[in-house]
């Protein structure tokens, strides 16, 4: 039976996050964007409210929540600030490889501690030379007795400078290509790990983004998540579940941009009337609504499919959601700045930040170009 309504708990969740965003994120977003400082306090508060690590299974004491709940949380937070959202939400990304590919003992050892304190976990796949072509990664893991010796660099790693744990994708044999890739749980306190600077980004500026260098880091063999050669599959299974919440964040940001520009258009008068009376403005607002509503539905559809075990179809829909949400959010934010005119171009008004923030969504978690390749591949299969 088709049902488009949220359950009572989902509605309560949405309302709670909206309130949290109103009180904790929105008043502080501009400040963190300006200084680029890490929003540690807000992360801690989000953790206390139970909004992090929602994917840790119930049998380990976690919430055991799926993609749809993640989507609801991310849309609401995205409407507040994408930089802060990324800082909070990226733990789910970091822990998924362990939850999907790890043994119970490994989930117990590496993931469960995140339930007792606001630790951070970073997902380490991308490298300076391997972005869209993630499968060509070069970070080497050489077997030596009871350990893997890790050597190489990762790039654009979120929360790298503050993480307690890294889930690192590396290769044991480049010649095997993706079949040589493994996933290692790497505690941040192991010797040999160093970081690049906090990148000075166009948008999502408070999100800590760095290079990581592994220099002969000794990782115990028991930290191998899944079997040798399974690493790439674990990464893809993870991204299948995080792509949609990321898209939802863009939906939230676009929604905020639309609300701001709608309210501005009602106040701003030119030629003797509110600019909201002009069709040019109305058409922009109408198109924003179409884009946002349709992107949200794709996110819900994808989340529902994955949560109900239809991973392949859900993965396909997550590509649709990500491609649409990211691209439309950029269009919506750009139009929002346009509606605000000169004022929108300054930091005094909130829309230029949204435009800078959403640009990144077209790039990370699979570029909009990669999403199109995935979609086309699926379509041309039969």
């Amino acid at each position, binding site marked *: 039976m088709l049902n488009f309504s949220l359950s*009572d*708990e989902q509605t*309560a*969740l949405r309302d*709670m996050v909206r*309130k*949290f965003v109103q009180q904790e994120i929105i008043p502080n977003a501009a400040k963190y964007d300006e200084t680029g400082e890490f929003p540690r306090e807000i992360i801690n508060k989000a953790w*206390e*409210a*139970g*909004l992090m690590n*929602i994917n840790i299974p119930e049998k380990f004491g976690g*919430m055991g*929540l799926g993609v749809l709940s993640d989507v609801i949380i991310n849309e609401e937070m995205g409407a507040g600030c994408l930089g802060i959202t990324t800082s909070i939400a990226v733990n789910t990304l970091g822990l998924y490889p362990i939850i999907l590919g790890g043994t119970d003992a490994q989930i117990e050892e590496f993931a469960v501690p995140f339930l007792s304190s606001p630790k951070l976990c970073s997902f380490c796949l991308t490298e300076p030379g391997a972005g869209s072509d993630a499968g060509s990664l070069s970070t080497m893991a050489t077997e030596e007795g009871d350990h893997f010796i890790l050597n190489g660099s990762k790039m654009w790693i979120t929360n790298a400078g503050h993480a307690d744990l890294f889930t690192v994708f590396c290769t044991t044999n480049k010649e095997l290509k993706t079949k040589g890739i493994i996933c290692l749980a790497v505690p941040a306190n192991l010797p040999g790990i160093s970081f690049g600077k906090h990148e000075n980004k166009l948008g999502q500026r408070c999100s800590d983004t760095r290079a990581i260098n592994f220099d002969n880091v000794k990782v115990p063999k028991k930290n191998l998540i899944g079997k040798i050669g399974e690493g790439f599959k674990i990464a893809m299974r993870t991204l299948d579940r995080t792509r949609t919440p990321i898209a939802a964040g863009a939906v939230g940001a676009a929604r905020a941009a639309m609300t701001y520009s709608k309210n501005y258009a009602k106040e701003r008068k030119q030629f003797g009337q509110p600019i909201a009376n002009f069709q040019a403005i109305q058409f922009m607002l109408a198109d924003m609504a179409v884009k946002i509503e349709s992107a949200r539905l794709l996110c819900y559809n994808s989340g529902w499919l994955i949560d109900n075990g239809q991973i392949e179809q859900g993965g396909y829909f997550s590509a649709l959601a990500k491609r649409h949400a990211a691209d439309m959010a950029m269009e919506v934010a750009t139009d929002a700045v346009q509606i605000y005119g000169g004022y929108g171009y300054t930091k005094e008004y909130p829309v230029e930040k949204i435009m800078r923030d959403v640009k990144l969504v077209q790039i990370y978690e699979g570029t909009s170009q990669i999403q199109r390749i995935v979609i086309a591949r699926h379509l041309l299969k039969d």
Partner: protein
Amino acid sequence: MTIIVLIKQVPDTETKVRITGDKKGIETNDIKWVINPYDEFAIEEGLKTKERLKEGTVTVVTVGPDRTVEALRTAVAMGADNAIHVKAEGTLDTYLVSKALAEVCKKENGQIIFTGKQAIDDDQAATFAYVAELLDYPSATVIVKCDISADKTKATLEQEADSGAKNIIETSLPAVIGVNKGINTPRYASLPGIMKAKKKEIKTYTLNDLGLGAETARAIDTDYQLPPERAAGKKLSGDIPTQVKELVRLLREEAKVI
């Protein structure tokens, strides 16, 4: 020790209030209902009191139609142990609500009863006193600090007076405490809390169950009006000393704020 928190579900502060055609009420169709913000401070104070004393249970109570159960669930999601719904449709006033709340407090043997100093919809600010009178308990309102004695027989309260002064009040327990903003920072309903709250059993009473089947509201609203349109500002003229004199006169005689 039973800690009781009396809460009211009210329209969200951002609501665009519309008056019904017969002018006897407000349109409730599109309203977003929330816990009265002052009652959120009361819930938090109840939870904090239980944490400080390292014992006791927190029971939240509300009176109203079925939609008010949502307010109870949010309170449970914040951490309240028990929730009681007094189901009442139709016209409610402070009298009828207070009668019902007092009956529940008696049944539950509430040792300390917290509630917000006022509800933000009708601003009556009377329920705390009404309930206390019906129970013959002492009460105090506009409280920003509440310390329970170690033997749990007394409470020392800080009451906000005008001009920033504080009155220190000592009361025996049981008592009814009307709390003000500033007493604490209400916690968020946690995500695990929200999930658990869904399954929580909520005790329901009708007015009949409480022996109040024959009671009705005694104060009925007969007419609602929107506030007058904001008048244009006054522009003062003349030299500065003249303007100052005129401004002071207006503030004293017209605005009556000095």
